């Protein structure tokens, strides 16, 4: 019987990447440290490698969240700009209906409110 695999969630993917980045950085650091002459410093630096792995994994998760927010914010910004452009066009176009202009202005208000309330932080990037 074929095994059906559940696809990884966004959080799962992010955790996997953070683990990979932390592990990679730890291995890299340990390899560089292996060149340090024998002694107390080398001893402590080797102990530091797994701690560095965990710290970098944590920082990676923070960086991912920050980038997700940034991309989501840019997405909302683009939508806001598109609405603003339409409003400008509609205001200069006498054939445009007042209902459409009102709808656009209402949309702009809602997007601006969403920006102020930082609702982009609740968007999920896939």
């Amino acid at each position, binding site marked *: 019987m074929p095994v059906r695999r559940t696809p990884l969630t966004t959080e799962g993917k992010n955790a996997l*990447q*953070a683990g*990979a*980045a932390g*592990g*990679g*950085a*730890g*291995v*890299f650091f340990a*390899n*560089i440290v*292996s*060149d340090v002459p024998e002694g107390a410093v080398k001893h402590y630096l080797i102990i530091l490698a797994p701690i560095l792995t965990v710290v970098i994994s944590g920082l*990676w998760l923070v*960086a*991912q969240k920050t*980038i*997700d927010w*940034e*991309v*989501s914010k*840019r*997405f*909302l910004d*683009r*939508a806001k700009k*598109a*609405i603003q452009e*339409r409003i400008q066009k509609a205001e200069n176009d006498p054939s445009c209906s007042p209902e459409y202009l009102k709808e656009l202005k209402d*949309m702009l208000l*809602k*997007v601006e*409110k*969403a920006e102020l*309330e930082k*609702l982009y932080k*609740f*968007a*999920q*990037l*896939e």
Partner: protein
Amino acid sequence: MILVVIEAEAYKSFRRINVPPMIWADFELVRMPVNLLADAAEVAANQNVFIGLVIGGTIGPTLYLVAIYLRHDSPWWVKWLVGISLLCVFAELFVLSWQLDVGLAVWATSVGIAALFTSLSVLAAKLFQLRVLRIRIGSKKFTVDRRADFNDQQLREIVAATEEVRNARKTDTSNN
């Protein structure tokens, strides 16, 4: 990172121009630094780290970028060309590692660095929107493509989705 950016730029050009030689030029950009670094590896102070950087730094981002290529709706021959180019790059890396007689430590470093660089490529691709992303706002999903313009319907849907998130948050706050 430089490799990733060069790759990404070549990728964008390829998407724009859409001619097969661009794929070769693209992978040539990966191959060139590999060859240069291979020469430098022989005189490097820490050969393990250096060769690890070369091998890992090439394999990780290249694999990721190839994955981006293959996820797009390219014709079958483009996928084959990409696959063959990739095999050439990897074959060259294996020949390089054999010539330099690398050990287990180098491979461990390579895997670690490949993991680190791949994660970096994923972050960079997201930040610079090198691939088409999907964004979920409330219960709606949208495609994030900076080259495409929004139409009226999409704008209405985006605004409705932000309203949905706002209402859900209000409900959450009042429940708490």
